[in-house]
């Protein structure tokens, strides 16, 4: 027996139901959408832009854009796909901007607290292995992030959307407005390039 959608809490409602609530005038419904998708969008922006502050700025910008244009949402694709499309386009524009290029040249990669010089003490557990092993993993993860950050924009988009955001090929095609075959080939080329650049790590 399924529950009546009207009786569900807003946090349990689907994205489309919350969008309808928002369009019906219940603006607080958008907060549930933000809470539900902020991790994904923030993660995408962080990997795409390579900087926490930029990721924060741009992810909020993405949600503001979504808030303003949500009345134009036509329910043809999932809300997350629509939101990812806004996110990818905003991040691409930001990458192209002169201000971002200048800032990136000055600061380098900054992907959060795990990148700081004074990291938190490592937790030694049975699964984590030896501290040396943990340190190697962190170094490897940092190198992989740097390599992804250095990829060309279109290949970076493919790697992030598929292997970090774990979108399906169809979702990637919907987000990037590409055909499924194009997504396949581009993703294959992006992975090959990444493999070549990570030879010394692997």
């Amino acid at each position, binding site marked *: 027996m399924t529950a009546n959608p009207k009786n569900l809490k807003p946090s349990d409602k689907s994205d489309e139901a919350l969008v309808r609530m928002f369009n019906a005038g219940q603006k607080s419904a958008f907060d549930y959408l933000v809470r539900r998708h*902020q991790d994904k969008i*923030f993660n995408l922006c962080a990997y795409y832009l390579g900087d926490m502050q930029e990721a924060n700025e741009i992810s*909020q910008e993405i949600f503001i854009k979504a808030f303003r244009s949500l009345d134009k949402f036509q329910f043809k694709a999932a809300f997350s796909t629509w939101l990812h499309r806004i996110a990818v386009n905003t991040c691409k524009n930001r990458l192209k901007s002169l201000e971002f290029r200048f800032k990136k040249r000055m600061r380098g990669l900054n992907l959060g607290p795990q990148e700081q010089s004074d990291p938190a003490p490592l937790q030694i557990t049975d699964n984590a292995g030896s501290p040396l092993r943990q340190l190697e993993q962190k170094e490897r993860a940092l190198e*992989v992030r740097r390599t992804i950050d250095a990829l060309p924009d279109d290949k970076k988009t493919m790697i992030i959307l598929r292997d970090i955001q*774990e979108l399906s090929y169809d979702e990637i095609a919907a987000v990037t407005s590409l055909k499924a075959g194009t997504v396949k080939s581009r*993703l*294959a080329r992006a992975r090959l390039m990444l*493999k070549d650049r990570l030879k010394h790590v692997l």
Partner: protein
Amino acid sequence: MNCSEIQNHLSAFLDGEIDASQAKAIQDHLAQCDACRQALDGLQAVVREVRILEPVPPPDDFLAQFHHRLDSRKAHTTWIKRLFRPLHVKLPLQLVTAMLVGGFIYYVVQTQQPCLITQPEKLDAVSRTAPIETQKSGKGADENLSMPLKDHQADIQEEKEEAARPMRKEALKRLLRENGVDSAAVRKKSPPPDNLELKRKILEERQVRALSPSEDQTGAPAPEAPKKDKSKQALEAKKREPAKRDTVIKLGEPIIYGPQEELPQKPAPAPKRQRRVIQLALVIDAPSHIGNKGDPRRSAPLVQEQERIKPQAEMRDRRTRGLTSTDSRETFEAEDPMMDETQAPPLDMIASQEKTRSLEPEIEDFRSPASETPKKRAIGQAPPQTTPEPEMGPTPAEKTPSRTALDQIIKLVKQVEGDVVDVSYSQADGLPCTITASIPKQGSRVFLKALNNVGQLTPPSKIIDTKEPPRITFRIRLLGNQAGLNCD
């Protein structure tokens, strides 16, 4: 499928995004091909490395920050919406903006247009218009020509109150007619060389008028006009001075209208001017000259003229009083009977007369009595006053060309309102050899031209430029067989 095709599909094969038949074919190939299997292993390792990357979490207050930014943006957008969205605000705002933009464009176009005219053209426009305006207002050319156009127009009302000077108007009209230009042509299409010629002629006319003030007797109130507001005119002259000088200096105009302080009506001190001394040599008995004593045609009038010597007392009195209009008139009255007494000249004399006329085109163009006087004398008439003054040197025992020339020069100096400063005589024979005279700048050109009639002048007379001081000292040395010797 070969290895390259297999490797192209390995990425999709890894993700399970491939149809079953292709997946079966790839699996069969991988079982046999080590290279493709290694490629798949490498690809799997890369994907695994990327997928184990930890996600980057957003800040805890992400939603609060979002609300803060959303509210600030909303306030901003509502202000813009309030400004532009309602029609009763939007339309007047657009209308006012359109009018402002249109007005600005009109202003820019109107102000840019005069700038397209180059600087020399500007002066041409001013100088072309100035004589015409002078003609319209009936004001003397010597005052108005030196004014900038702006100041001139401002003073038109004041000038209209003054009495008209028909003689000057006539002279200007005649001048324009003789130059072959009507007023429109002068305004618009007169090329700069013609324009300069026009200005030069007007300057000449002013100088000639300074020589013969008796001409103004027809316009009764005219002589009193300059005296009327001397202080006011001096102030105006001071106001006009800087702009005028700027224009002249900037454009390098070779001939300028004389500044106000140089006009005979309003002599003003020129403290910074340097003294200018011009030394000339006058050959008084050159065989080719008209005034040659060896010419038999010249001797008779000279003898006649000697009989018409005026009393020395009268002459001295004149020098002390200065040349007034009455004196000048008396001079003409004295000359006219002499002209009547002279017989008609022979044909070769007419030819020489024509030659002299061609040598003096500028004076000829004016056709004023004052300008014709020296010419007539040069043709064959003796100068009216040839009496040497006793204080200038020893009493002449006999008339010599040098003494005659001295008398003529003294008279010329008086006519141009100059002063004879010194006359030196030869110690050997007592004949005059050097005459020093101070001549106003305005009369210096005429004076030099007239000197050409007394004798052969070297260097040529075109040595006066526009930057001369108000008074020029001429030191004329008489040369020739009959002149004084050992003057040094």
